[in-house]
């Protein structure tokens, strides 16, 4: 929305040409200028500039919806609001399962089972809706090379022996899980940016990133100057794109995190390694 060209904001052709002479071509450039600068750049008086501001704002402002409309829309399709984890007590605590349309973060000390949980959720997502799944593909971004395809088949075969009764069904399931191995922050970010088209073409219904913490920890030492800013820059950019994808396509997005010790003057307490602005946190 921000990069929308002013031409499409219904400004007149000559105004757009005049503005492009000052390198003001998108709505973002236009709205970042102060009123006096706009008067100089457009050559209009104050009241005309106010009208232009309203026009450009209308072109990129979000649409209004009341909370009631949102509730009605959700209640139309209640089954697609959660991905059940098949662990009854966990589903009860989460009010149904992993929520669609928002980010969920899973954190734990090493060896507790985060990757196993993610692999199980991948299997669940490929199941048909009648069995509690999402009947779609899965995108699995693996930064630790911990994903094991054999383990995936083992979980599927032992958990749902009646459904996966033939090799063909197992292979069909594995074909809908798309694994990407990214080993640096830059690659992870690039991959996240390219996900929109993949989701549409492959009919993806679940995104898993395992794990965000390992790449960040490898590359950013928070004791060095400047690294903290760059690290939070990377995390917030990734988080905002993932939030957009989750909301736009109404699919669950799962991130895993690691636990480290927060050294303070008192006894050491456990703290999450990275904390982007996530919606829900599960601690195992």
């Amino acid at each position, binding site marked *: 929305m921000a990069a929308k060209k002013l031409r499409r904001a219904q400004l007149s052709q000559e105004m757009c040409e005049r503005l492009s002479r000052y390198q003001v071509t998108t709505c973002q450039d236009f*709205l970042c200028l102060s009123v006096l600068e706009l008067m100089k750049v457009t050559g209009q008086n104050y009241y005309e500039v106010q009208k232009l501001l309203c026009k450009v*704002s*209308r072109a990129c*402002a979000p649409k*209004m*919806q*009341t909370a*009631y409309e949102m*509730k009605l829309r959700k209640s139309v399709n209640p089954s697609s609001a959660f991905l059940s984890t098949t662990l009854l007590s966990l589903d009860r605590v989460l009010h149904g399962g992993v929520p669609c349309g928002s980010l969920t973060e899973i954190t734990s000390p090493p060896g507790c089972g985060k990757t196993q949980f993610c692999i199980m959720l991948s299997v669940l997502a490929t199941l048909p809706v009648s069995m509690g799944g999402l009947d779609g593909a899965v995108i699995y971004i693996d930064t630790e090379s911990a994903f094991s395809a054999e383990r995936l088949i083992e979980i599927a075969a032992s958990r749902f022996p009646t459904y996966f009764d033939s090799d063909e069904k197992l292979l069909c399931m594995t074909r809908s899980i798309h694994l990407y191995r990214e080993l640096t922050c830059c690659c992870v970010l690039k991959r996240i940016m390219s996900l929109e088209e993949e989701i549409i073409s492959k009919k993806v219904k679940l995104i898993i990133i395992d794990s965000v913490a390992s790449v960040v920890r490898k590359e950013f030492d928070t004791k060095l100057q400047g690294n903290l800013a760059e690290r939070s820059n990377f995390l917030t950019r990734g988080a*905002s794109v993932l939030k957009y994808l989750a909301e736009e396509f109404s699919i669950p997005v799962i991130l895993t995190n690691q636990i480290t010790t927060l050294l303070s003057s008192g006894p050491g307490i456990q703290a999450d390694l990275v904390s982007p602005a996530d919606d829900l946190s599960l601690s195992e």
Partner: protein
Amino acid sequence: MQREVGTLPLAPALRARLAAAGFQTAQELLDTGPCGLSKEIGISREEALEALQVVRQECHGDAARPAGGSGATRKCTALELLEEEQTQGFIITFCSALDNILGGGVQLTKITELCGAPGVGKTQLCMQLAVDVQIPECFGGVAGEAVFIDTEGSFMVDRVVDIAAACVQHCHLIAEAQPEEDLRKALETFSLENILSHIYYFRCRDYTELLAQVYLLPEFLSEHSKVRLVVIDGIAFPFRHDFEDLSLRTRLLNGLAQQLIIIANDHKAAVVLTNQMTTRIGQSQSTLVPALGESWGHAATVRLIFHWDNSQRLATLYKSPSQKESTIAYHITSHGFRDVQPPAVTHSTEGAEPNPRKRPRTEEEKQ
């Protein structure tokens, strides 16, 4: 009428030409008339007429202001302000300890900022306020509507439904304890559907959409004149990444703050912003401070900082022009924002002026 030409809001090129031609005051322009003006400066008659209309509008605005018109400069005495403040309502938070340290609740016409780490309850409080602003006047509320601008995507409709249902039930209990006609009549319109329909939700994905939405807010508020609360949850998120030019960020934030203050005053609305925390690395230790820098600290009138103490949530009133700094504990239950223990005393005044519209509340029914 003696206003100088250089101060008129005309196009800069036109102003330059007028100055070059020797015009000094607005009265001279009006006396010359459009045809004379167009011949002297060399512009078309239509442009000259447009310029004169702007001048006339400005001068008319100047003349109207001393008569007490609602322009940008309003003059009133402190006594008038005191009377206004005393009759003004507060938006309660349902946590009486928090209401007490705020002096009654979230104040209208002021900007309140809520800062805290993720997960401490800022969005919960915002959703609670969006419901509480709609409480009818006979129950001690403001009977207004709410605008919710969401930049982080943390608004959950199901949670608002829970909070609204608890609020409606609470009002029903009060109405049963005090059988009066107007209470019952007010409850007819205070239903779940009505509450949800009067929360206007905007989802802004980056700072450009946020700026655009704030530019369009005055028009929206004039159309929906019952809005008494504008929530922006959170203001920090779109400005914290992708900003190499920090001076641009400061300028945009200051512009936003000014516009929000104007909106709060003109429409008698409360503006509530949520902010994130960031780490400031000192020489020997690092501390958590509100994000967006020191200069942003001046934007809000009232600042609340939420933090944890082991497993207890605490709220500290960090900045306020009228209340003293204090810390209280609060709880987030399935019904929303609440006190830690049930309040032992009633709400009737501990030093605060009795609000003539409010009825003294009976003891709150706990859950």
